[in-house]
């Protein structure tokens, strides 16, 4: 058991190594079956999904947004079509 060969605590997608957003998702799934513990109202699956998306795809999304007008175009179009 080599305890010396460590890894960085902050992962490349700015998450906590050993306690990533995936682990939160897994735990939330378990505790929908085993309802014990006080978790301050729970994480709310919508928030977990949002953070999961931002951790995993956030960087790519920003990259695309910065490099092309595509996202800006989509956002503008989306807002333009929204009923006011």
């Amino acid at each position, binding site marked *: *058991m080599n*305890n*010396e*060969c*460590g*890894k*960085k*605590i*902050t992962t490349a*997608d*700015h998450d*906590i*190594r*050993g*306690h990533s957003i995936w*682990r*939160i998702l897994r*735990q939330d799934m*378990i*505790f929908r079956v*085993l309802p*014990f*513990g*006080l*978790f*301050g*109202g*729970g*994480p*709310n699956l919508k*928030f977990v999904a*949002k*953070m999961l998306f*931002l*951790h995993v795809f*956030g*960087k790519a999304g*920003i*990259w695309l947004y*910065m*490099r092309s007008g595509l996202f800006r175009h989509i956002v503008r179009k989306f807002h333009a079509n929204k009923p006011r």
Partner: protein
Amino acid sequence: MSTLTTYHKIDQLVAKIREMAGDFDVVSFDVFDTLLIRRIHNPDLLKMATARYISNLARASGENWRPEKVQRLRDKVEAMHRRRAGRKFPDHEASYPLFMADVLGLIFGQEKKDRMLEDVTNFELSIESDFLLARVAFKDLLIWLKSQGKRVLAISDMYLPATHIKALLDKAGLEGLIDEVFSSADSMAAKASGAAWPLIRKKLDLNTARWLHVGDNPISDGSRPCEAGISALVLQDVGEMHRKLLAKSYHEIAVKRPYWRGRLVQQYMLPMESENIPRSDLYRHGFVYFGPLLCAFVHHVAERAMAEGVERVYFLSREGEILREIWKTIAPVIFAGKKLPEDHYLYVSRMALAGAACAHEGLSHENARITFLPATNRDFRDVCRVFNLTPGPFLPILKRHGLDVDTPLSHWHDGWNPRNGLSFQRMVEHDADFQAEIKKQSLPANSALQSYLESEGFFSSGKVAVVDIGWLGNIQRFLYQATRHRADHPVIHGHLLVCAAGYPFPYAPDNQLEGFYHDHKKFGFTGSLLLYAQDLFEETTRANHPGLMAYSPNDAGGFELVFRPDNDACALNEKTQSDYFAPVQEGIRAAARRYGPAMSVMGYDAREMKPWLNVLTVNHIAYPRTRDVEILTRIHHLDDFAASRPPSSMAKKALRRLWNRPVWQLRFLPGLRAYHYLKHAVYWLRS
């Protein structure tokens, strides 16, 4: 001719600067979000920490100013200064020393404001500094630029004057790498309007054709310098934007759900740039789990101690050493501007205190039964070992009650008979000779303890707090019983990380005990999961010094602390253990350095961390990874109350826990963790 190029990765930008360096004599950098980055997404959040500090100072001088009210006043005064500057200069700038002096003048009066300004400025700069760190790639670049003989400038549009910005740059590790610092707060001419560029050019007599500027804002650091004839490179770092987006999102959901508040604090605590280097798994456990848990505990102790008017806080050896270090790290930051109780480290152990506790009240049956809580203890010899007694003088008394020193008194052992237990109880409760001998033998240790406690100022305070990891509060029990005969004994408020059920505690108006993370008197299932692995918490937090064996009187009528000898087999095992767990403690200390500023800015109570701590506990203790159990489970645990004989097979079976299971079971048995979790839930709900 000036040019403007935008980069999305810092490495590419740095490579380009190195390539272009020959064309320029002067390279200037924007400061915030370029040379220095903040751990938080919104710098305005830092202002609330200063508002809390000013509010605390105001309360200390009898003025009632809530932090929100202070912040509103600051915003108002700052806006007024900006409007005033806008009438005279091209930019609506403000200077921190000027507007903060006005704010403090309105709160504390004109005569006090100058003295207050220095304190408040130092606090604001220290909080800013805690949240700032230099980008490694730029630091390396600055060193290289200096070696190439280039002139390096730092230019910022900021309300802090250049002297303050220079202090922040120096503290971030850029000392000696920047020739001049310019701030719009000094000249009221900012980069954003373009007014700063000709001013700096004139002041330093620069050739704009040989000047390169680097920054993050496409207008202030891009278009404006280009208009002034300066070449510009703009960094719109995708990685940084991603990090800030995540921090912002955690901040938003933390407002809506308490669950995420602790996660937000941990996001602000995460190591970045040069701090984020490969660490061992043990360090990671210290930083990610044990650190936040213990910091929240100490944070809670500080909150309670100040609310209860406690004058001294005693951290009990040996777990108390690291708890006291955490106190010293986080309490002055979180409670800046408030008067904290004095903190002390008290050398105690159950063994040393148990012997001293019987001098005035004798040995109660309740105390005697504590001996048999560890399943390895069996007979009266163990009672003598635990209470530091010599068995010889008790032999005739035992004989009178039909007992012997070897008669089994614990149900975990062969030969146990309930009648023996009753005889033992009768002897302890009704035999005056037995109690007289107990008091006689305990008196010297008690006198030495009194001298030690007097030397630590224990009796000079009306209220004291004692702090320990857990579990039954036996140290506090013995401390209270050893001192309550004195008229000047203080009211003791005990604080444990986990206060477990299992043995009655002598609660009294002058002897209170509460658990932060779990208290058996309150509903809290997740906190009780720490009882899965009590040894783990003791081992990882224990100070690296031998355990205390006894308080011994010396010839001068004082005391001597008797520690376990260094060459003792147990002491050597403990030493090996402590050396092994040193990286965990290193991680805990690193977490404490980040916890204080993060909590100071967010303004959360310790209790608001609990939902997130529960999540961490369930994952790390109830559903641990096999590898984590492997590296965190060590065999050298010494219970100073327990005898060295092996426990019976019955006791072994009863004490089997998830963390004692063989590695192959943890790895290959599906549902093992869920089984133990449910077993614990059933036991806990029934008890």
